[in-house]
């Protein structure tokens, strides 16, 4: 019997959420530095307001809901689910105040798209946007998705190891790389910063080589490095990466996209000396397979239908978008309407699947994740084997992910549950989109882009999108980032509270 909700439950959740507010308050101040550099002093108040509100609410929670009780698993999961709504809500304030979007709902959409590392944009006039607000959009992707700031802050500021561990679990990262959660968080930040620096340097060099002035090259470099590693996909210009008309830029982007799609554990192992892990790891193998398979099918299809006919075009459009989709980044060098009107249906379908399948677990990518896909694939093999062998034979299996792990039924069930949840949400999202009048393939494409936190758009996402569809995609982006289960737990929690009321 599930115990009823008590006031204490709500207090525990509310009290621990204070950290989410505090951390959001801090990172909303960072763009002020950018505003100062570019002398955009009129934008400073926007960040002050957002940040101040975050601190004020955090303080109120801290004072009025103070409790000594420990968090349990259910609290941690609900808290993380809510935190992933709170941070974008607060971040939407500066975006809205700066008139970067047409409405407050759009600002919320943009903020959630940023924080979840999706990259679908409804911002208007991106080319005229202030550097500070534009930076905020990219920074949101870096801290929200690249670093997973909420979990990290919760684990650093969380009072005990237990509550930290639970917060980590809520966000579906396994208690990780090292036994200590604080240590793990620091490592995640370290890895992110490392690749951020490398990416910025590479993009800056590429930018200068391709004719940008140094200042722009650095600014664009930093921002694209943030969204590239975070596999987010926001860009500083309305044309996304097409603005640069540069294979050099696209190559650097691919480097960051693939690296961002690799597991944190893998990074830690490889950067710590275990280079062989790259070749042994199941997720790398699966990712390689999917990237090349998707790239092959899409390129062949594009060539066959005469959309592109040169090797360079196939690589820069076919392979590039296959990688952008699979890693769930969303960098795009093709106009959205071209996906809808010019690209053949097979490619759109294959890209949709790639987006739902996603990148590695414990990486900045979204989707069902390679690890689960690999596990499910292996379990299919095992099942077929089992049926081909005599009844008395015992079939086991294992997979290599940093260490060799047995393929237990529990592992397979866990993977299957998440995969099915994604497919169900994908179907519902596609139906809702189609109900608004869009074609089935476009609906599938855009839905998988939102759910997989990708960001490739075939034109459905725009400021003119119906409000109900905007809300739907905001929900999908949020659910996708939390791998759906956490959202279901939150729903269960709310239903439980409504059904049985809240006991003292």
């Amino acid at each position, binding site marked *: 019997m599930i115990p009823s909700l008590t006031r204490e439950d709500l*207090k525990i959740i509310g009290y621990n959420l204070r950290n989410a507010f505090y951390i959001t*308050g801090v990172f909303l101040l960072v763009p002020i530095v950018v505003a100062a550099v*570019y002398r*955009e*002093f*009129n934008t*400073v*108040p*926007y*960040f*002050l*307001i957002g*940040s*101040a*509100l975050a*601190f*004020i609410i955090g*303080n109120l929670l801290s*004072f*009025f809901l*103070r*409790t*000594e009780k420990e968090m349990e698993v259910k609290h941690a999961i609900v808290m993380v689910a809510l935190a992933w709504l709170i941070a974008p809500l607060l971040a939407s304030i500066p975006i809205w*105040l700066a008139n970067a979007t047409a409405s407050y709902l759009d600002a919320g959409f943009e903020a959630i798209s940023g924080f979840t590392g999706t990259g679908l944009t409804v911002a*208007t*006039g991106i*080319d*005229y*946007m*202030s*550097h500070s607000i534009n930076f905020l959009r990219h920074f949101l992707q870096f801290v929200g998705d690249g670093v997973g700031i909420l979990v990290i802050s919760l684990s650093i500021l969380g009072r005990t190891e237990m509550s930290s561990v639970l917060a980590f679990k809520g966000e579906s990262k396994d208690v990780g790389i090292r036994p200590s959660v604080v240590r793990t968080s620091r490592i995640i930040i370290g890895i992110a910063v490392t690749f951020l620096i490398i990416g910025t340097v590479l993009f800056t060099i590429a930018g200068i080589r*391709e*004719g*940008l002035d140094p200042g722009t090259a650095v600014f664009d470099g930093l921002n694209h490095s943030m969204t590239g590693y975070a596999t987010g996909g926001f860009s500083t*210009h*309305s*044309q996304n990466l*097409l*603005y*640069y*008309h*540069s*294979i050099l830029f696209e190559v650097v982007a691919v480097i960051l996209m693939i690296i961002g799609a690799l597991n944190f554990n893998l990074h830690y192992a490889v950067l710590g000396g275990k280079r062989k892990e790259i070749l042994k790891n199941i997720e790398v193998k699966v990712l390689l397979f999917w990237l090349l398979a998707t790239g092959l099918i899409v390129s062949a299809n594009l060539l066959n239908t005469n*959309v*592109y*006919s*040169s090797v*360079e*075009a*196939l*690589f*820069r*459009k076919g392979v590039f978008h296959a990688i952008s989709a699979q890693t769930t980044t969303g960098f795009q*060098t*093709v*106009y959205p*309407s*071209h996906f809808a*009107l*010019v690209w053949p249906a097979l490619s759109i379908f294959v890209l949709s699947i790639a987006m739902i399948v996603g990148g590695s677990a414990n990486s900045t990518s979204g989707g069902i994740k390679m690890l689960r896909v690999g596990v499910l694939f292996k379990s299919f093999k095992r099942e077929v084997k089992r049926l081909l062998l005599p009844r008395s034979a015992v079939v086991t299996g294992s997979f290599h992910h940093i260490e060799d792990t047995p393929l237990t039924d529990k592992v397979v069930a866990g993977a299957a549950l998440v995969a099915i949840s994604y497919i169900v949400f994908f179907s519902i999202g596609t139906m809702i989109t189609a109900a608004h009048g869009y074609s089935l393939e476009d609906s599938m494409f855009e839905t998988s882009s939102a759910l997989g936190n990708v960001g490739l758009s075939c034109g459905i996402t725009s400021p003119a999108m119906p409000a109900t569809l905007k809300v739907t995609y905001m929900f999908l982006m949020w659910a996708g980032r939390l791998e759906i289960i956490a959202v279901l737990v939150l729903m269960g929690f709310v239903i439980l509270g409504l059904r049985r009321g809240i006991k003292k």
Partner: protein
Amino acid sequence: MNWKVCFLLVLLLMLAMPLASAESGRELIENSSGYDGKTVSFRGEVIGVMIRDDFAWVNLLDNEGYAIGIWCPAENAKAILFIGDYSHVGDSVQVAGTFHMACAEHGGDLDIHAENFIIVATGQEVDRPTNLPIAALGVALMAVAILMTFYLRRIRKEKQKILPWPSY
């Protein structure tokens, strides 16, 4: 006879010039196949300039928010004074040239290879004044947040001295 020749020449020149009405960005992008390989004209504000040896990319943004990359000789790009961004309105440029839906020379990018490149209007700097009420609100809220933090911390410290943790 001379003025007749002149008149004919002017007429021929006018016919050879690109269509007076520029195609909109939306038209070009959404009906690309209809314009592929044809001469089009496009007008927009400069939002990006990248000079690459003898040629350059100039990204133009039209008034509906559609941006297209223009491939033109470097001299044209070098003549641009303002690039549009937060603090500038970019030069307004009218181009005429061959439209490519998926340019073979440029790896499949959609672009226009300019034959005619005219800077129609120069850009300018844009002033972004601070909104005083919002600024005041920002400072005020921040002050509230900071004061609150200190005040609450003080209350907690005092309560700690008097009682053990109160149970709410």
